[in-house]
């Protein structure tokens, strides 16, 4: 069954899009991060214009994060103060990101930048995850009750000015760090259409030293508002948010996420992470070959401008 996407301006199979949404939801349920970083490249593979894929995916992230924030908030897993500081950076970053996106689109380099950023990001994350899961696997085999890592590590974080006390996270660190982190995630979110949880969550744990319990909830809080900001700005400046596409992805995700969560509870975590890293690396490799392979056509068209 085909449906015409009014903003992407092409027709696409409904079940393909629902399935894509479900797959992204499955991943987000399994790993607690949004599936956006896989869904956006897949949307581009199936032929959605990159600008529309990114903006509509940001819209999907809004639904995804409100859905998980619901639970986290009730459990009291949100460090509101940290969330707001991150958000301050996130709002700045995403606004700058949408501006950058618009500029890149105008000079005709947006597709290229999206592809390169994805290759860099996916291959980094994929490799890190792969090493982490493999080393966990071998360590556990050698030493089943091995020593746990330190809760906090003390780096540069503690020497920057503008220190703030974050009670829930039991931290006393410079606000500049979460603001900077939020800023970078905001840019990623605007250009790649991802929530950024897969970068934000590890950064909050390893860079800020936040306790794991509040990390997911707090990142969800920041992602919700940043994704809403990206959706709004993309719609207002570029007109690239396709709500029909977003709705199909959201509906698929709503079904996929709880299934993913249940699967994650049953399956061994290490194997899952190894599998996931493999999947991420595959997508990265595919995107890289697209960049390196001689294209079937050297020419493409920019946006049509109807002159008055």
């Amino acid at each position, binding site marked *: 069954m085909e449906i015409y996407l009014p903003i992407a301006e092409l027709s696409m199979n409904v079940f393909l899009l629902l399935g894509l949404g479900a797959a992204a939801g499955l991943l987000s349920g399994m790993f607690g991060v949004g599936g956006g970083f896989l869904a956006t490249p897949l949307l581009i593979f199936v032929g959605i214009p990159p600008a529309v894929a990114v903006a509509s995916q940001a819209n999907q992230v809004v639904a995804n994060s409100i859905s998980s924030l619901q639970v986290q908030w009730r459990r009291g897993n949100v460090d509101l103060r940290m969330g707001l500081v991150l958000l301050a950076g996130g709002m700045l970053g995403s606004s700058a990101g949408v501006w950058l996106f618009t500029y890149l689109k105008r000079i005709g380099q947006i597709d290229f930048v999206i592809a390169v950023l994805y290759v860099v990001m996916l291959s980094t994350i994929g490799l890190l995850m792969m090493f982490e899961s493999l080393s966990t696997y071998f360590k556990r085999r050698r030493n089943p009750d091995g020593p746990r890592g330190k809760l906090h590590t003390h780096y540069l974080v503690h020497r920057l000015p503008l220190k703030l006390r974050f009670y829930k996270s039991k931290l006393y660190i410079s606000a500049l760090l979460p603001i900077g982190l939020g800023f970078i995630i905001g840019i990623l979110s605007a250009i790649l259409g991802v929530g950024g949880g897969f970068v934000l969550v590890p950064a909050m744990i390893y860079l800020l030293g936040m306790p794991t319990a509040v990390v997911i909830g707090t990142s969800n809080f920041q992602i919700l508002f940043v994704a809403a900001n990206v959706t709004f700005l993309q719609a*207002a400046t570029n007109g690239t948010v396709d*709500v029909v596409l977003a709705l199909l992805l959201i509906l698929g995700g*709503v079904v996929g996420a709880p299934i993913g969560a249940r699967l994650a509870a049953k399956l061994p975590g290490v194997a899952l992470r190894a599998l996931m890293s493999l999947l991420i690396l595959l997508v990265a490799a595919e995107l890289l070959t697209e960049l390196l392979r001689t294209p079937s056509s*050297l020419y493409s*068209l920019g946006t049509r401008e109807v002159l008055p």
Partner: protein
Amino acid sequence: MRSLGLLACLAVLVGATGALAQGPRLEAAPGALPAPTIGGPPDAIAPPSVPNEPTTPDLIMDLSRARVSITSAFQGESILLFGMFDPPGEIVVVVAGPPARETVMRKQRFLGIWLNTGRQAFDDVPAYYAIAASQPLQRLLARGAGGEILSLEDRLSSLKPATPRDAAELARFRAGLVEVKRREGLYPAAIGQVTVQAGRLFRVDLPFPSRLPEGVYDIRVYLLREGKIVAAVSRPLPVGKVGFSAQLAGWSAHEGALYGVGAILMALLVGWLGGAVMRRL
């Protein structure tokens, strides 16, 4: 047997002319230049070179649909153009989409990676361009007396570049433009076949692909005798989104901020409800 066929043809003709009388058709008035007078987009094409004849032969046409509607289920469409003319003569049909500025981008290998390095904008590029004829076009226009009938190559060679550049490069970009448009089905490579029945009734299928730019398309039908245009009619064909798609696209284009807020509210609602429902299952 033969007379029966002729009778059927006549019946069709009567039906067709009946339908034609209702449509907003444009016919060349006797004695006047058969220049199309529709309110379509203006273009730089010169009026046809028609000899000053006392009477212009009759030429009428109509379409199976008055407009191309892009609905939620749109997957491209084929429209039937039909009509009648005073024999003898040959029929040429030219369909041109609305003109706009198009930017052609060219990829180049840079440090092993393919990226857009060259760009060239052209003004007055038709969104769509198709020609159909009842005889091979080259033969019809052999003496160069086709007047305003332009093959795609001729139409595009007159394109004005938005910024000046040397001729060889411009030709390359122009070829690139055609290549992309062909791939999208917007510049059909083959000349369509106009079939003529009973010597005076003609018909042709006009194919429109699914990725069709919106706007008012211009359909012109010419009657040629010995390579010269002796009559012409034209007709605008609006192409546009209708229904829900049109509404959404309109909001997105004109009320971007409001549309954005709506998209966020939709996501919040569906995400919240969906999450709540699925957790209970």
